[in-house]
């Protein structure tokens, strides 16, 4: 196991009866990075996070969190980690501030009261309201505050912006950037691929309990198909373009506008287009969402 990794799992296996949730997951999250963990429901994202916290015990494999084995010393791991569950549950009868103080007591008072209030102010949360009277979004804000309030070295966030409006999502993204700048590592799962694209340094895609891809979001996008639209001065014979390696024609309008998908380098296509009277070329990168879907088709 590598000491420079904030999170490292090797051949991690977790079964729920006959259901294999993790099938030999190898994961490496570097210190100080924001790592987006992508996958559809049931892919094993939450199971992975909960193995890291020793809430559940893997059937096989090795886990290190900040260099510590969570099964040997879970308290040491949790003292340095902030966690936001995907299904956040809170004590409905408590006021937001009382809930946060309760959780802070569980931490031995690691968080400073002033910082809790500062976070609440940034998220526009009234701490003196009973939790049962708060909206889902406001409850999620409490979850975010309790994960950040003790300024942990590592944040494990399961769908952190779930239920938050776009303004608050942006504020949470800013929190994450601030924490990363302060030296923390952030490991978060999300369904909102646009946010992963914006804030993650690296992305891991998990499918049925296995990591199928790890890369920087930009690399992932560039590695995939590029959409190209070419407008010609006069109709052209499409089949000559289709013969170019890595090019697939999608749509043609009377032969003057052709839309294509290009895999890999553009060089061969540009050279092939040189034989035609081209009036305009437009290229478009796919979104991370489209790239993500490729892994699930």
């Amino acid at each position: 196991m590598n000491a420079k990794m904030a999170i490292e799992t090797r051949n991690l296996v977790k079964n729920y009866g006959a259901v294999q949730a993790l099938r030999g997951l190898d994961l490496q999250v570097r210190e100080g990075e924001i790592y987006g963990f992508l996958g559809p429901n049931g892919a094993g994202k939450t199971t992975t996070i909960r193995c890291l916290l020793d809430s559940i015990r893997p059937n096989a494999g090795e886990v290190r969190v900040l260099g510590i084995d969570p099964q040997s010393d879970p308290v040491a791991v949790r003292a340095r980690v902030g966690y936001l569950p995907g299904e956040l549950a809170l004590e409905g009868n408590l006021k937001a501030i009382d809930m946060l103080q309760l959780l802070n007591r569980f931490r031995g008072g690691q968080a400073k009261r002033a910082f809790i209030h500062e976070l609440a102010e940034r998220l526009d949360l009234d701490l003196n309201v009973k939790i049962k009277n708060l909206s889902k979004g406001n409850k999620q804000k409490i979850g975010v505050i309790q994960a950040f309030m003790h300024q942990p070295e590592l944040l494990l966030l399961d769908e952190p912006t779930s239920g938050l409006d776009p303004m608050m999502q942006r504020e949470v993204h800013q929190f994450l950037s601030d924490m990363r700048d302060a030296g923390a590592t952030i490991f978060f799962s999300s369904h909102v691929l646009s946010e992963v694209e914006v804030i993650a340094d690296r992305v891991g895609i998990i499918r049925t309990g296995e990591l199928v891809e790890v890369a920087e979001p930009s690399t992932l996008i560039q590695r995939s198909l590029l959409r190209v639209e070419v407008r010609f001065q006069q109709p052209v014979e499409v089949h000559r373009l289709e013969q170019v390696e890595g090019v697939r024609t999608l749509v043609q309008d009377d032969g003057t506008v052709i839309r294509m998908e290009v895999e890999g380098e553009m060089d061969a296509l540009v050279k092939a287009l040189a034989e035609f009277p081209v009036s305009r070329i437009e290229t478009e990168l796919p979104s991370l969402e489209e790239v993500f879907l490729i892994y699930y088709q």
Partner: protein
Amino acid sequence: MLAILRHTMSRSRTAILAWGLILAIYAGSMVTFYDNILEMSDMFTELISHYPEELVAFVGGAEGITEPEGYLDTYLFSYIAPILGIYAILAGSGLLVGDEERGLLDLFISHPISRTRLFLGRWVGFCLSLLLIVGLMWVGIVIPVGSTQLGLGAIDLVGPFLSLFAFLLLFGTLALLLSLALPSRNLGAAVAGLVLGGGFMLNVIATIKPDLDSINQFSPFAYFQGGKAAAGMEWGWLVGLFAVALVFSLIAWLLFQRRDIRVVGEHGWGLPNILKRWNANRRKAEAT
């Protein structure tokens, strides 16, 4: 652990006050009726002699009903034990699994608290709640007892309540253990409730059918002295009840150490989901 204990106690506050005060008032009022019963002792003995023996057994027996300890047993402890037993079962089964089913345990356990500390904090909190409820009842009796002809002092009354506490602790820890071992809190509480109800009925029937004594000796009711402890404590029985409660607690602690903390919506919630999963697996096997 103190933070967990404090949290457990603050959550139990309402239950402690409600159960404790209501039962204290009830117990106190029953004690004040003793003098009336004593005055009408001949009439009562005559009346009870006409009752069917099953009914007499059901109210804890008529043996020495005009004696202080017999009176307390018949009019107070024979009812209070199964009633408070229900509270102990509900509180015990919800001690950890209640939070787990609400999704709170997943959040709590992500904080720097070991499972042992979490377990101990909850367990001590539960013991203290029982002790406070039983203690309030004891106070409820001690206050008026001096003005009656019961002839028992505060110290004499410690025995019956100690016996009650041990009995409740046993059922509470049984419920705690079952809730951790079985798929859901409800199932754990239901099985513990069956043991409580079954034990009560068995104990009643065994007083009129001595053949059942051999089975009844496995029931906690057989070792619950109740009011009769005021006349002399069966220390062996008391220690036995505490010892079994301790064994249940230790097994529950071991289970809690080893098991996964579940979250809402995860596999393994209750029998209906288990059956659903079993059916899904069966259909999948048939399809292939």
